[in-house]
Structure formats: C-alpha cells, structure tokens
C-alpha cells in the first residue's frame, strides 16, 4: 500500500501540470482569435485574385504565348516537390502527426517519382531529416508570423525550380482551419497552375496583353496560396493546441479526483486500524 505522503506528492505534481495545461489553453485561445482575424482579413484579396485570374486565363487560354508560360507547363511527374506546412512546436494533439502521416503516405504513393520536401515548420523538418527523402529547404519559426512577403520569397524559389525543370510538380500539404474543434488536412497541387474551368465572365478590355498579365498574376497566385496555407495552419495549430490542452486539463481533474478518493480511503483504513488497536489494547487490560 502506497503511503499517504506518496499520494499527496502525486496529487501536487498533477496539480502543477494542470496549471501549465490550463495556462497553455488560455494562451492558445487568445492567439487563436488573432490568427482567425488574419485568416479572415486575407480572404477578400484571395477571392479577388481568383476572379481576376479566371478572367485573364479565359482570354489567355486561346493565346499561344500565354500557353507557354513556364508555370503552366504540365510534365510527367517524375520529380515532385512537396511543401509541408507543420507547426514548430508540439503539444497540439494529433496536429503534427496527422500532417506527417499524410506526407509519408504521399511519398509512399508516389514511390515511382522522386519526392523532395520543402519543410515549413520544425516538426515536418525533424521527421524528414532522418529519412531517405531529400530536404530542399527548411523555414523554421515562420508560420506564426508569416507575412505575404515571406510567402512570396518561398513561392519565388519554388517557381524558379519549377520553371528551370528541376521539379515537375509542386504539392502542398497543410491543415486548414475548419472550426475550433476540427482541422481539415488539405493536399493540393500548387504547380503547374491549372487554368481549366476558368473563363472570363465579361468581355474585358485588357490594358496589357493577357499573356503579360498572366506572367505577373501566376507568381502572385502561388504566393497567395502559400500565404493562405501558412495562416490557416497557424490558426488550426492554435485551435488544436487549445482543444488538446483543454482535455489535458480535464483529464488532470479526473486524476486528482480519483487520487484524492484513494488517499482518503487509505487514511480512513489507517484510522480504523488505530482505533481497533486502542480498543483491543484497552480490552486486554480489563
């Protein structure tokens, strides 16, 4: 039977842990609100860019020069670049393991091709660092404070590699923020950009030739997709951490409750024992 002091010590340690998880939950909740605001603020631009791209590509589709844009060239996928957006820190439930598992599955599914990984976030980097998958670049400590300019820099690197024929396709894996309790894992193709199904809604006058517009729009489109992936992932990470820490806090409450009950039982047993000893001692004297 464990001694009373041992159990009391365990209760105290669980309480300490609970205080930490409670604080982490509160911090995550506060940061989540800010991250959510960023996601909302970025939506109008993304929607407008999508529309302009649609209208331009509708006009550019028949254009021979536009069709030669290097970011549209579809090649057999022999060398695939995977952009994996993960968190930099753990303690966010299954957030990172889901991403890493999906990325590993992606690599296995494309065993015929050579897949290389560009890691945005420490957890993805750590996973692929010790595996046979080559890492082309790592961006740590970026996701939480990503700016459009950061996304632009990464996008330019990816686009340059693609245009130079070093990669045949670029895929993006990240967690999308659905709600506070749910994240949606997204696997999407970043390059080549698919213009199918896009067409002009009106008969536009184009100040610049459509192929020139496309030249500047496509890199921006890549940048916006990356930026969106990063801020969505940041919001999703905070949400995942908040949920994980919330359940950790309530688990700690359960543990404390059952330990306290156990402790009281032992205490009572001990007291009963002592009373019996006193009573039997007294009766022996009579």
């Amino acid at each position, binding site marked *: 039977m464990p001694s009373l002091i041992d159990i009391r010590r365990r209760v105290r340690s669980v309480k300490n842990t609970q205080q930490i998880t409670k604080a982490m939950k509160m911090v995550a909740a506060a940061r989540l609100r800010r991250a959510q605001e*960023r996601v909302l*603020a*970025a939506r*109008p*631009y993304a929607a*407008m*860019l999508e*529309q*302009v791209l649609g*209208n*331009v590509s509708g006009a550019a589709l028949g254009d021979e020069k536009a069709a030669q844009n290097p970011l549209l060239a579809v090649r057999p996928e022999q060398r695939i670049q995977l952009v994996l957006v993960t968190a930099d820190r753990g303690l966010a439930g299954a957030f990172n393991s889901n991403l890493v598992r999906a990325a590993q599955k992606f690599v296995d599914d494309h065993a015929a091709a050579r897949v290389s990984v560009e890691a945005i976030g420490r957890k993805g980097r750590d996973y692929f660092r010790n595996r046979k998958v080559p890492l082309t670049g790592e961006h740590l400590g970026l996701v939480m404070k990503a*700016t*459009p300019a950061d*996304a632009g820099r990464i996008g330019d690197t990816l686009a340059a590699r693609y245009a130079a024929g070093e990669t045949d396709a670029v895929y993006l894996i990240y967690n999308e923020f659905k709600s506070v309790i749910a994240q949606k894992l997204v696997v999407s193709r970043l390059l080549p950009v698919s213009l199918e199904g896009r067409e002009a809604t*009106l*008969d*536009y*006058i*184009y*100040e*610049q030739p459509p192929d020139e*517009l496309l030249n*500047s*729009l496509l890199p921006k489109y890549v*940048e*916006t997709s990356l*930026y969106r992936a990063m801020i969505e992932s940041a919001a999703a990470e905070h949400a995942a951490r908040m949920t994980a820490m919330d359940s950790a806090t309530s688990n700690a409450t359960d543990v404390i409750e059952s330990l306290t009950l156990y402790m009281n039982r032992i205490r009572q047993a001990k007291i009963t024992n002592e009373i019996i000893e006193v009573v039997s001692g007294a009766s022996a004297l009579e």
Partner: protein
Amino acid sequence: MAATFRLEVATPDRLLIQEDVSDAQVPGAGGALGILPEHSPLISELGNGELSYTTGGRRHSVVVHSGWVEVQPDAVRVLANRAERPDEIDVERARQALKRAQDRISKLGPEVDLARALNALKRAQARLTAKQVSH
C-alpha cells in the same frame, strides 16, 4: 444609370476599402484611369501612386503600390501589393527614401539597380503627394 459603384481595395493581408463611390482615379501601369459608374469592363496592371475617390461628396485617397485592377460596370476591384491610408504614411521615412532614391539615380553606376531605384522613387513620391506635402 447608377450614380455610384462599389470600390474595393485589398492587399494580401487586409481589405482596406469597401465603399460605394461616385468616381475613382486609379493609377494604372500605363497611366491614370478615371473611372465613373458604368465603365466598360477592364483589367489592367496597377502602377505606384495615389488612388483617390469620392464618396458622400468627400474626396479621399490612399496610396497603392503595384498589383492589378479589375473594372466592372458596377464595381472596381483593386488588388494592391501594398496600400496605405494617408494617416499611415511616415513622412520622414518617405522623404529619406526619396532622397536615397534620387542619390542612387544621379550617381548611376553599374552597382545601381535602376528599375528598383525608380520604383522606390515613385513609391516615395506617391506617398508624399498623398500626404499633400511638398517635396
């Protein structure tokens, strides 16, 4: 004919303007575009400069730096890489940037990236014009 149209100015990280306006001056890459309601559909690249518009009889302006503009009869959407309201402009910084750009252009050498310097010059000028200070 509608008397107003919708003007939306957005940058990658925020929506700066969303208002019904009666006219707008947009700095296109190939020159300023004066836009009134019922303008024919148009798509153009955006230059650096002041974007001004009238709403409720009052004139407002913001500074935009490259991007695209899409004009529809009842709406104008401006996608700017960067945009600032006049009260967000740091005059001192813009003045310094202007001077730096001018210096760089005047002592033109092989190490000077002319396109970049010109861009910086235009940006600084646009900021100062919008702030309505002499430079």
